């Protein structure tokens, strides 16, 4: 089953082996980074990273950058 999501504003075809948010972060090499994840405009707590990612989900990966 092919799943296409919107990831940080871009169309993204989900790799078949990636099922949930934690696995997506791992796939993107972000598992050890300081990030915040929003799914369909809801902020995910870290213990919700096992939520499955479905076709057409909207995911935002946010982080801190330099600023004043």
């Amino acid at each position, binding site marked *: 089953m092919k799943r296409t999501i919107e990831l940080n504003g871009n169309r993204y075809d989900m790799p078949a082996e990636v099922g949930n948010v934690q696995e997506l972060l791992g796939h993107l090499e972000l598992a050890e980074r*300081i990030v915040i994840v929003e799914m369909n405009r809801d902020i995910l707590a870290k213990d919700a990273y096992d939520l499955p990612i479905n076709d057409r989900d909207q995911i935002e990966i946010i982080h801190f950058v*330099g*600023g004043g």
Partner: protein
Amino acid sequence: MLTIGNKTFNSRLLLGTGKYPSFDVQKEAVRVSESEILTFAVRRMNIFEPSQPNFLEQLDLSKYTLLPNTAGAKTAEEAVRIAKLAKASGLCDMIKVEIIGCDQSLLPDPVETLRATEMLLDEGFIVLPYTSDDVVLARRLCEMGVHAIMPGASPIGSGRGILNPLNLSFIIEQSTVPVIIDAGIGSPKDAAYAMELGADGVLLNTAVSEAGDPIKMALAMKLAIEAGRLGYEAGRMPERDYAVASSPTEGLVTI
């Protein structure tokens, strides 16, 4: 000591983390500044370049309090969303409300700032709104229960220093919470002046990051803020219109 919410700090310099020439220079500038509060922005990650270095991830986070800002927000709702994202990191519960109402001057939108502040206080954040130097607005924010108010000295990144010392001194006099002069500081004299006016702290970024030698400027700002604070506590002499000799006028000898 500077107390904001339930936290106490030795340093009265809050440092922004944007626009440094390199991470090495930035790290050293942060170290010599002895700042304990660092500001950050919250942004969508460039996930297709995950190897990009990130300054925050290079810090010993046990040493610093993070003050994320809501820069980029134009409405209270957008600011609240950014604040909640920042808090979800589990790294901070402070938020600098920054809602720009004018793209040219980057001055804050007072109405949206008030709205966002109220919403964020309800959500239990430690709220530090960036405001203009409007005396009544500052009072309204105080009455709302903010944890500090941060009036600008002059437009963000302009380096023009303190344009309205009278308004700032009224704000300082009336405030029941710490007043941190934020934005527009250009040189150590501006920072010292802010502290001499009685400010509790200074937040600056570009004055250090865009200095010829950011590390040296970070040290200069730290010393200026300490000097200004000491001067304020000591109480300056009165200004007079005419000279008063420092040497005694009695017992003059003719050589």
